[in-house]
């Protein structure tokens, strides 16, 4: 039998210290992303020229400590990072979810329909995958009015094809199983067969895949922000913070470097967390990825 049952909870909780650390960072990222704006008060429009370009750990005039320094207009970098985590979190999760949902629909449709429909849909997937996804994102972003929603959709467009490919492969393999044929023979509706027989096979592989997608999307969102194509100016994102520090690398390295480090930590942590998922849940499914 295939590994369709979950391992015991105890086995799932046994983690190496680095894995714990990674999961803690992911949890911290989620908490900060959700609650960040309530934890710190930060006004992206406020400027304080007296406090501009202060290095990390400087005590400011108002008594607070700028842990990550301040930027060219005197805003606290740490607060910006905390504030911007929300954008990364929302964009990352929503885009990954939209991409996964769309990829599942296309992939299952192709796998189910077979023949020409399948070839047609999969050629589109192949063509899309032939282009670097950041290129597609930049291209689309150049034409579309920047907004949170448009960034989410643009990034989802760049990532659905991978999901569709995996979903199609799993669907085609599942369709050959006798239990699916038995359901077809007994006249069950297509929707019920998809829901009861096919979708359950997709969850675990796609959860693992989604964790990989999530870090790619967070990186892509930061890249778009860096290029000025991302979220609107009044929505501070990590990419924008780095972009704003680009011109001060020589005299204020922290503005671009420290938020960059935060992105690295988050992306690596999500990667490790995905790896934990893959090892705990993915016995027998990694071949599909």
């Amino acid at each position, binding site marked *: 039998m295939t590994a369709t049952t979950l391992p015991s909870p105890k086995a799932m909780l046994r983690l190496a210290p680095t894995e714990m650390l990674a999961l803690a960072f992911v949890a911290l990222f989620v908490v900060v992303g959700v609650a960040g704006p309530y934890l710190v008060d930060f006004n992206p429009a406020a400027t304080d020229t007296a406090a501009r370009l202060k290095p990390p750990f400087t005590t400011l005039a108002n008594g607070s400590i700028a842990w990550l320094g301040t930027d060219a207009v005197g805003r606290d970098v740490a607060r910006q990072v905390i504030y911007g985590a929300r954008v990364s979190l929302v964009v990352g999760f929503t885009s990954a979810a939209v991409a996964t949902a769309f990829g599942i629909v296309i992939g299952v449709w192709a796998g189910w329909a077979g023949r020409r429909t399948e070839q047609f849909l999969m050629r589109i997937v192949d063509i899309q995958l032939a282009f670097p996804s950041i290129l597609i994102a930049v291209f689309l972003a150049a034409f579309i009015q920047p907004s949170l929603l448009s960034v989410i959709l643009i990034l989802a467009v760049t990532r659905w094809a991978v999901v569709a490919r995996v979903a199609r492969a799993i669907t085609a393999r599942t369709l050959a199983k006798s239990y699916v044929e*038995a359901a077809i*023979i007994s006249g069950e509706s297509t929707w019920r067969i998809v829901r009861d*027989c096919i979708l359950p096979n997709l969850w675990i592989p796609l959860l693992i895949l989604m964790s990989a997608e999530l870090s790619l999307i967070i990186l892509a969102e930061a890249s778009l922000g860096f290029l000025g194509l991302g979220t609107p100016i009044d929505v501070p994102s990590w990419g924008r913070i780095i972009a704003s520090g680009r011109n001060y690398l020589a005299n204020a390295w922290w503005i671009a470097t420290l938020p960059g480090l935060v992105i690295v930590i988050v992306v690596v942590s999500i990667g490790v967390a995905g790896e934990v998922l893959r090892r705990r849940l993915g016995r027998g499914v990694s071949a599909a990825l």
Partner: protein
Amino acid sequence: MTAVLAVEHLNFGYPIGGLISGTGVAVKALDDVSLSVEPGRVLGIVGESGSGKSTLLRTIVGLNRGYTGTIRYRGEAVDHAARPARRAAFVAGVQMIFQDPGGSLNPFKTIRRTLSAALARSPSPRAGAEELEALLHQVGMNASALDRRPSEFSGGQLQRLAIARALACDPSVLLCDEPTSALDVSIQAQILDLFGRLKREGRAFIFVTHNLGVLGHIADTIAVMHRGRVVEVGPARELIATPQQAYTAALIAASPRLKHRGALLEHARRRLAPTPAEAAS
């Protein structure tokens, strides 16, 4: 006796993918096949690998579209392109049992859900606890199986459960594609005994196998297939004893273990023979 299930001049070919699918020539997998089976009878089908045995069963139940010829159930032609409601009698009356016990039950559902769904689809839907238990008793299992999932059963148990699902809608025809070849000999004997009981209840079988030894025991009629054609049909024992076609003779000669396997099965069955008390009831 009139046939409960009959196929007339059935032709079917698998499309071979050309550069663009659908443009390739078809591999002829069924070539003018006409066969029938009466209630309470077993039609055995033998033939070498690739001779079209599975294709025949899959075409009958509607898994292969684009065939020509007629499939009749209780005298009426079946239209697999019709909406499920219009072929409800066929769907309930003709059930299939697959070769791989491991794959024939949905691994994500408990046995209770699988069997309840099957009962709910039957012509007279009742899915109470009693019906579920009665179904399991028919295949020699009990209610303790209900809340478990397929991964918790052995191959022989899974095949029994698959048979239980097939029996849920009280079918008159069971199509079996190598139902015992994944099982070891003593389990095979148990399953064959179960089939024997279902046969005595008046159900018809089309029984596909490589194993002529198995057919010699269970089949009334044997059809020999070769490259999509039925090359010989006849009463089981006669056909094995005095094959008319060279191909059939070769097939029998090529089963050197036929006698041996048959003997093993016979031995296993004798051990399993019902006790006098059971036989009396």
